[in-house]
């Protein structure tokens, strides 16, 4: 424990800790090396015309494209539109999905009634619904957000509900012996015991929301990273496509890290020892 004075390390312990450290650094260094190598090979082979940069693009052109987009003032507009749509889809998917999961947990009857519908909706490729949303809602950000929602909602419901249903029946019995009603069973046992499955749903949702938004932007949009990719493809501007994909990768990774950060906040202090 941290509040106790550490005794002097034995030679074996020091040796072990040194090895752990070396390993950690070498993993990190190798990761960086791979990244640098890929971009270097890409750049060099394109410069030597071993590959056609018109088709593969190349890092220096990507940087140029990035700078141009920034100068024209479009860069952050496109990133902003896509991120906003994703966050909206993600939040709605999470809140609505968790809400519906609570309802289904609450009523076994409703849960049984809806089961076959959920199974069908879950296996249906939601992208097929795209044209329907566009006609119903009209082309624009709303249709894109609904697309993202459609992709993440069912998975969230099933994931969270599964977590709720796996709550230890003996722990539920325990609070019932104190006379707990259904709401108390939920708030005292089922929800706190399942913070991790809610967070797992969040993690899956981040990825799915991105899929939904990009597909939505492919189908209908005038701005956003998905729009840039489709547009770039149509005018055979691989520089634009590659640039957008890389921005997308960075943005998605950042949002995922955000969820990991929330997870750390929520589970702070809990099970510190249990997980070792």
């Amino acid at each position, binding site marked *: 424990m941290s509040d106790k004075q550490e005794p002097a390390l034995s030679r074996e312990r020091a040796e072990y800790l040194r090895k752990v450290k070396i390993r950690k650094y070498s993993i990190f260094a190798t990761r960086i090396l791979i990244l640098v190598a890929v971009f270097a090979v890409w750049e060099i082979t394109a410069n030597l015309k071993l590959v056609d940069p018109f088709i593969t693009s190349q890092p220096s052109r990507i940087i140029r494209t990035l700078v141009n987009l920034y100068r024209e003032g479009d860069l952050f507009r496109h990133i902003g539109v896509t991120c906003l749509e994703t966050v909206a889809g993600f939040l709605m998917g999470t809140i609505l999905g968790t809400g519906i999961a609570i309802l289904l947990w609450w009523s076994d009857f409703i849960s049984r009634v809806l089961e076959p519908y959920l199974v069908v909706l879950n296996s249906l490729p939601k992208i097929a619904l795209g044209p329907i949303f566009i006609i119903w809602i009209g082309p624009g950000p709303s249709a894109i957000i609904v697309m993202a929602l459609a992709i993440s909602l069912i998975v969230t419901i099933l994931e969270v509900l599964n977590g709720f249903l796996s709550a*230890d029946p*003996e*722990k539920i*019995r*325990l*609070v*019932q*012996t*104190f*006379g*707990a009603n259904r709401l*108390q069973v939920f708030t*005292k*046992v089922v929800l*706190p*015991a399942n*913070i991790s499955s809610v967070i797992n749903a969040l993690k899956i949702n981040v990825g799915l929301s991105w899929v939904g938004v990009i597909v939505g932007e492919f189908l209908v949009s005038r701005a956003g990273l998905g729009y840039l990719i489709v547009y770039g493809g149509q005018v055979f501007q691989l520089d634009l496509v590659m640039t957008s994909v890389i921005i997308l990768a960075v943005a998605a990774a950042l949002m995922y890290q955000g969820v990991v950060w929330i997870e750390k906040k929520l589970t702070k*202090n*809990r*099970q*510190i*020892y*249990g997980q070792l």
Partner: protein
Amino acid sequence: MAEELVDVRNLGMKYQSPNGEIDAVRDVSFTVNKGEFVSLVGPSGCGKSTILSIISGLLKPTSGSVRIGGEWVRGTSRKVGYMLQKDHLFDWRTIYQNVLLGLEVRGTLNRESRERVLGLLKTYGLYDFKDKYPNQLSGGMRQRAALIRTLAVNPDILLLDEAFSALDYQMRIAVTDDIYGIIKSEQKTVILVTHDISESISMSDRVIVLSKRPATVTAIHDIKFNLEKRTPLACREAQEFPGYFNTIWKELDVHV
């Protein structure tokens, strides 16, 4: 004359399921006096726990009735504290938050009840651990915390449902002594359900032997030891112990 606290009369329970009907308990009657420690002993799966669930009000019997302190049991009663097989401390709560659970659920958490719980923690040596999480405590201390959680709501009667059987043997003997001491000093009435004959004899004033399913009362034994200070461990070594053990063993009629 001792004051009668629990009156179980002609209790019957049949479970219904799509696959058929299970006759779990049939015509069980007994009473428990205030301050008494009574064990229900029976083979595994005989319906002992069903009887406890009915007394606690978690389960409605198909026939018969239970009265606690003269009142009919309808739904979970505030007079009853229930201890399950495992301690079921919530690992997302500290020990202090865990023992407050019952008060929270019942909506009786106030300055006075908090003081009482802190007093219990102090008396039974858990005060210094109150801000620790359950997985930082030993099995024995966890069991003690679970008992304090039950005592926190100040029940008249404690129902122990195989309360120690999740522990390994040595731990179990030690914990039994520990919990017994606390229960006696709090002067609680107890009904213990167990399949362990030794455990029932060593702790109880009275042992009620139940038959295989459907559970019926086979025999009732008053357990008396000639000991200055009775503890479960001392009882296990007392000369009366083997006699009780053999009688109950025969009545349980165990076949492999």
